[in-house]
């Protein structure tokens, strides 16, 4: 397989992420599948930011340590990453600011020549990259015109100058027969899925790494005809969303761990009042403020249990663009079919990673909800526990929802028999949810599907785990649905497995605890909790050590 990895790095404020996206777009235009890893500390100026853009002829969802090209806008980029250069690799560095091997690019000189602003140094570096790998100028120009709508001509002059100053050293050829693919962050793929699933509103308070969903949906709110609201706190967020739901509007919220802590009373309210809501929860390193811009999978158990009392919930952890798109839409539908909270559990790696999709996303048709009967009772007893929704205003009927234990019409009741009836109604919804979701697709299998040793993972590490499984001839088993646990699909996926290696970005192995409840045992835990995701080479080594 032909593939390339390019690392671009600089200080926060140098426009590294934007330059990375330009390079990713150029690869996508050449017909490559692209994944971009974005690494940045929690600050706006200074620090060390870098992106790794990986382009390949088949879908990729993770990065490699080895890079073919380093684009250094600061000294740290050269110093920290030079040992990851592949044998044919080279460096382009901003001279004289950076000292390195490779090719010098006098960015300040170019900026002075065209009176560009310092931030345009990133465009110069993109130009230099394109010259180095021999991308036709017409393609470079087309991408810059599309992606840099502001000061386009000036950016083009600067890119062109850098392009012509660099000597060609690697040859990147277009992929034959392939056409460009959309390039969106994990958060954007989730947001797009929410739209496809039919949300009417999105409510959120900014919190990395979930804010991308808020920004994306706010940017398309008018054309999509949805409401996007940023209120005073996460407590307000979830309660407003439940207000929207009461009034018949499909609503999602988004946050990370800290914000989700504030939402938990509202999650429990959704459980009791049987109000549909979708919660996008993007994990970052914890506890507390933790590592705002670095990854973790340490909120699985929290998400499974958050909120007092017992009530059904649905949790899916997508690992690819299509999965994010599909499960976000499904989360909206399930929330409304069963009147429960549903979760899309993401993390920094997935949310802020940038991806071309593995195939074209498809919008599935939605089924209508059951009609209520009259006189209306909000919590009418039904065989499957789901009481049809009526949206106020409705002439002659009242719609009462309640956070207290209540009777069929929604009026507070502490009667023991009514309490049992309501508890059992919610239990029946949980059963229905389990049958609806323990279906093909709930667990993803890969690698050598007959192998007796399996790598087990969930969420974003699937990208790297699946490449490692392929490379080492192991089986890959990865549940997407985490609650209710898809016991049937998981059993089928694990048939014949004798040894289980769990890979998780946590220090305790939370999926291991979930599986223990299901009667499974993992043999080896490969845990990572430095906030960084595994690269392919790193995980191959770790798995190889324990696999045999």
């Amino acid at each position, binding site marked *: 397989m032909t593939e390339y990895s390019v690392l671009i790095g600089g200080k926060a404020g140098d426009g590294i992420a934007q330059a990375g996206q330009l390079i990713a777009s150029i690869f*996508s235009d050449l017909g490559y599948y692209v994944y971009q890893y974005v690494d940045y500390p929690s600050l706006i100026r200074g620090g060390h930011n870098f992106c790794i853009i990986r382009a390949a002829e088949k879908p990729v969802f993770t990065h490699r340590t080895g890079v073919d090209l380093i684009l250094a806008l600061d000294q740290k980029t050269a110093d920290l990453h030079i040992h990851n250069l592949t044998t044919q690799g080279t460096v382009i560095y901003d001279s004289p600011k950076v000292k390195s091997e490779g090719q010098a690019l006098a960015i300040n000189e170019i900026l002075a020549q065209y009176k560009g602003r310092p931030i345009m140094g990133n465009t110069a570096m993109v130009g230099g990259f394109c010259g180095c790998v021999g991308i036709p100028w017409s393609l470079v120009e087309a991408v810059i015109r599309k992606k840099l709508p502001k000061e386009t001509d000036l950016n083009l002059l600067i890119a062109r100058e850098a392009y012509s100053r660099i000597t060609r050293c690697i040859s990147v050829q277009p992929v034959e027969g392939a056409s*460009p*693919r*959309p*390039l*969106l962050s994990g958060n*954007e793929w989730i947001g*797009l899925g929410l*739209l*496809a699933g*039919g949300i*009417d*509103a999105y*409510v959120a308070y900014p919190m990395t790494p979930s804010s991308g969903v808020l920004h994306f949906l706010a940017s*398309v*709110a*008018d*054309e*999509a*005809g*949805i*409401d996007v*609201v940023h*209120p*005073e706190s996460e*407590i*307000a*967020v979830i*309660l*407003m969303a*439940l*207000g*929207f*739901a*009461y*009034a*018949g*509007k499909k*609503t999602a919220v988004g946050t990370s761990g800290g914000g989700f802590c504030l939402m938990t*009373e*509202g999650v429990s*309210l959704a459980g009791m*009042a049987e109000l549909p809501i979708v919660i996008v929860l993007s994990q970052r390193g914890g506890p507390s403020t933790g590592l705002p811009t670095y990854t973790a999978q340490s909120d699985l158990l929290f998400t499974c249990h958050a909120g007092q009392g017992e009530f059904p919930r649905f949790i899916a952890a997508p690992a690819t663009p299509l999965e994010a798109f599909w499960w976000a839409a499904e989360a909206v539908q399930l929330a409304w079919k069963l009147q429960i909270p549903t979760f899309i559990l993401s993390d920094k790696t997935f949310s802020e990673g940038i991806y071309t999709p593995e195939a074209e*996303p498809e*919008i599935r048709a939605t089924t209508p909800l059951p009609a209520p009967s009259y006189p209306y009772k909000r919590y009418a007893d039904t065989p499957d526990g789901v009481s049809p929704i009526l949206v*106020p*205003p*409705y*002439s*002659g*009927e*009242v719609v*009462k*929802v*309640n*956070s207290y234990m*209540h009777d069929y019409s*929604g*009026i*507070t009741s502490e009667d023991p028999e009514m309490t049992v009836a309501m508890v059992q109604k919610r239990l029946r919804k949980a059963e229905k949810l389990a049958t609806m979701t323990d279906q093909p697709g709930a667990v993803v299998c890969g690698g050598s599907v007959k192998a007796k040793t399996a790598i087990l993972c969930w969420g974003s590490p699937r990208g790297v785990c699946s490449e490692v499984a392929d490379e080492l001839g192991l089986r890959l088993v990865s549940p997407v649905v985490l609650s209710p646990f898809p016991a049937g699909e998981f059993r089928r996926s694990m048939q014949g497995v004798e040894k289980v290696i769990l890979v998780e970005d946590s220090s305790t192995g939370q999926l291991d605890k979930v599986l223990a409840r299901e009667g499974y045992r993992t043999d080896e835990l490969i845990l990572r909790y430095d906030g960084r995701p595994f690269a392919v080479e790193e995980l191959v080594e770790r798995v190889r050590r324990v696999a045999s």
Partner: protein
Amino acid sequence: MTSDETIVTQTQNTWCPGCGNFAIQHAMKFVIQELEAEGMARDHFVLVSGIGCHAKIADYFQLNSFYSLHGRTIPVATGIKMANPNLKVICFAGDGDLYAEGLDHLIHAAKRNLDITVICHNNRVYGLTTGQYTPTSPYGYQGKSTPNGLHEYPLNIIELLLGAGATFVSRAYTRRLPHLKRIFKEAIMHQGFAHVDVLQICASFFNATTWYDERVYETNESNAGLFEFACRTAKQWNYNDDTKIPIGIFFQTRKPVLPEKKIQKEVDRGVIVKKILEKAT
């Protein structure tokens, strides 16, 4: 059944005898029926309650209701109103509920100026949890959590609301029923955020009946459009000292109401998703 019978539920009322909540329920029933007679549809009312004695009102009215969480009437009401601007959304909150647990929402709702009505059943205690102090209890108040007396002065809620930019700020008293009805009606009719701080008798834990009866007077509202004037009226009583207590509309003005637009628009999701994908390619 008469309108009087159908607007209430059969639920057993569990407020203490002499509780001011009866007056609030009675006044609100009267106002809703009056508004109904004027052409407003009963099914367009949505009552949102917090948690506390006050909140039981949601169970007692045979009207749309969202019995929410302690302190959270306002965000729920905001969501409902944003989702459907045609609904008349009224919050019934307690002083512990609204001025302690959920105070941030109140300030932001005043600032946001969404067209909702907030009624605070201000009995100046936590009724349902048996009489602990609230943000409007007087200095020295002895409750189970402050047996040696409270060492905090109360919040002047009227000043706070004026400061937050509320466009309708009022106070009423549960033993001045005609006045209470009028204020409720004006608050509901006000276009924008409307607040009524109702001095409510708690018969069991803070029975200030005589004290209020002697001090409460109906303020002249002819200057209610003047902010400076409103600030002065607000200062007449600080929820603590032994002074006259003005009730009435302190301040009323018009400001742009939060734009409510959007979700009415029907957009084909397949088309919009395709468009976004094309743009991202």
